[in-house]
């Protein structure tokens, strides 16, 4: 008796899982209708699946990528489509969850029969989908998954953003060559892979260029008091201090540095984007690496910013820029391949040579983009593009 009840319960639960799974993902293909209205559909459609977190904590990221991808597709369709074909986006909300992403990916290839995948957005979900996309032979570009392990083992998988170590490397080069720093201290949040990777690569690259790293000061996520280590750093009197971390920790560190009178040149990573909200006064004069700058005068960038702002009434952030570039790379590949044949498209992505919003993009053999990094300077309470650098 007990056994049958359990069995029935289990079945009910399984059924409800399947049902809710379907119910939640029922969504019209949004880019498609817009595309077919604008013509260019005589040659059929190219279907690009998009997996992005539209709800939950990461909704902001997801919406930025989705909006940007829609914009890119609309522009392409308005201009007559790709080789006479209309591009259609099939967008699903993966809620930033790996399991959901896998289910939705299966749905994309089985039901929607997509030709390529844009997404998932964050590293965790991208890691889950990458092997499946590779196995299914679907070219995939994650716009913003920065984790190193997403692409190397899977020939079909690419990304539009650069990986974390690359930022550290470029900042090391900038410190040494552009601002002639001789000595540096690296601050590393040992509780964060992001920070550790950045610090390590900054150090290697800075020392390669002839600089010397006087010390590596470690801290953890739970630290709020940085005065002790900042006092140490002050005593060493370095030219630059590199902090690869997110803006809340950075703001706190910079505030305390000012308090104890440490006036070295501070350098950072894309996690600094956001420091302008609360800490602009203490961050003044700092440099950090970022994916793109809204102050970039490149017409590709300014066009994108204008069109995005006109459509969505907000300035696009770096995620939007990467989402846009991800869509551009895919569409460019379809154009160059001249068909939707997966092998041809894959080859076309490999040989990408494209001017995107986030820089001039080509790919290395691991599926990582080789492109410029924008160095942003915080000046007079504003984020100014200092220079664009690549390796």
């Amino acid at each position, binding site marked *: 008796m007990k056994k049958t009840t359990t069995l029935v319960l289990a079945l009910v639960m399984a059924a409800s899982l399947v049902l809710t799974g379907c119910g939640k993902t029922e969504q019209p293909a949004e880019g498609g209708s817009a595309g077919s209205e604008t013509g260019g559909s005589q040659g059929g459609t190219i279907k690009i699946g998009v997996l992005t977190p539209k709800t939950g904590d990461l909704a902001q990221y997801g919406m930025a990528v989705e909006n940007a991808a829609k914009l890119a597709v609309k522009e392409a369709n308005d201009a007559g489509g790709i080789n006479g074909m209309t591009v259609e986006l099939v967008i699903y909300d993966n809620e930033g969850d790996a399991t959901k992403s896998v289910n939705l990916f299966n749905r994309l290839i089985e039901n929607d029969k997509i030709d390529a995948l844009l997404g998932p957005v964050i590293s965790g979900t991208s890691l889950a989908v990458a092997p499946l996309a590779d196995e299914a032979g679907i070219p995939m570009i994650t716009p913003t998954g920065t984790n190193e392990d997403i692409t190397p083992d899977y020939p079909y998988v690419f990304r539009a953003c650069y990986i974390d170590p690359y930022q550290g490397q470029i900042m090391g080069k900038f410190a040494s060559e552009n601002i002639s720093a001789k000595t540096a201290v690296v601050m590393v949040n*040992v509780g964060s892979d992001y920070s550790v990777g950045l610090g390590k690569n900054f150090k290697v690259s800075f020392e390669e260029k002839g600089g010397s790293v006087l010390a590596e*000061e*470690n*801290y*953890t996520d*739970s*630290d*709020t*008091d940085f*005065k*002790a*280590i900042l*006092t*140490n750093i002050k*005593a060493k009197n370095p030219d630059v201090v590199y902090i690869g971390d997110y803006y*809340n920790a950075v*703001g*706190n560190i910079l*505030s*305390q540095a000012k*308090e*104890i*009178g440490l006036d070295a040149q501070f350098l950072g990573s894309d996690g600094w984007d956001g420091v302008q909200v*609360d*800490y602009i006064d203490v961050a003044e004069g700092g440099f950090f690496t970022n994916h793109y700058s809204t102050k970039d005068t490149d017409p590709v960038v300014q066009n994108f910013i204008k069109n995005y702002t006109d459509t969505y009434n907000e300035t696009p952030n770096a995620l939007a820029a990467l989402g846009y570039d991800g869509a551009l790379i895919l569409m460019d590949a379809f154009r160059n391949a001249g068909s939707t044949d997966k092998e041809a498209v894959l080859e076309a992505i490999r040989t990408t040579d494209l001017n995107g919003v986030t820089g001039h993009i080509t790919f290395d053999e691991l599926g990582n983009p080789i492109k410029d990094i924008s160095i942003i300077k915080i000046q007079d309470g504003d984020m100014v593009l200092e220079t664009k650098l690549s390796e």
Partner: protein
Amino acid sequence: MTQFIQQMINGLHVGSIYALIALGYTMVYGIVKLINFAHGDILMVGAYVGFFALTAFNLPFGLALLAAMVLSALLGMAIDKVAYKPLRNAPRISALITALGVSMFLQNTFRLLFGANPRKMPAVFNVQPILLGDLRIPPLTIITILLSGACMVGLELIIRFTKTGKAMRGVSEDSKAAKLMGINVDRTISITFAIGSALGAVGGILYSISYYQVEPYMGMMPGLKAFVAAVLGGIGVIPGAMLGGFVIGGVESFTKGYLSTTWADAIVFSILILVLVFKPSGILGKNTKEKV
């Protein structure tokens, strides 16, 4: 040498905050034999009240501090009434678990209300630091130390010279005998919670001004470290809590300065273990025999 003194000043700064928070632990323990693990979160609540008073209501610092103290005191009394009082005669472990529950309740309520993103505490004492040769003493540090000192002296005076203070001492010595002497035990416990929480709120505001951020989980670490300070000084002993606070602050600062930041927490918490193994009554604790 300058660096040594500078680290010592850093240590005094954070130590005086720990001492303030430790007082709340030790007072409550002294009187109801309860480790009030929700104390760290009361300091978080105090910091939030201070934050809104300073930003949304544009109150001057003194008033913001007062508002935070009053509201936290009321919250402390309410928590005692709702969560601890019904368990006064239950086994101690039940009250301890309840305290953990209250702590989680407060953290998650505030996360729900104000989000998990840290808010930036405005810089209140934004004046030039005092320079003594190479030494640099931020005014915030001086104010923190002075304010903490004033609170401790005030508390000592209350306990030593007022009737309420006498009642508190009486209840902590023997609550049954105190009751027989006509002391209102429940009211005394309530006042103890109020004073402890108000001091916690001062600690919370000073902590959030020193480290610029207010967030729902901010009370955990300083709360735990203050608890270590209270145990180190001798839990239940008020001067012990102050001493413990300064020692922990110093140890932390010197570890960070001369060893490594990653070791600081490990060393602070091994102090707790060492004290519990070798001198459970703490530095200033009396070695009282357990009454059977």
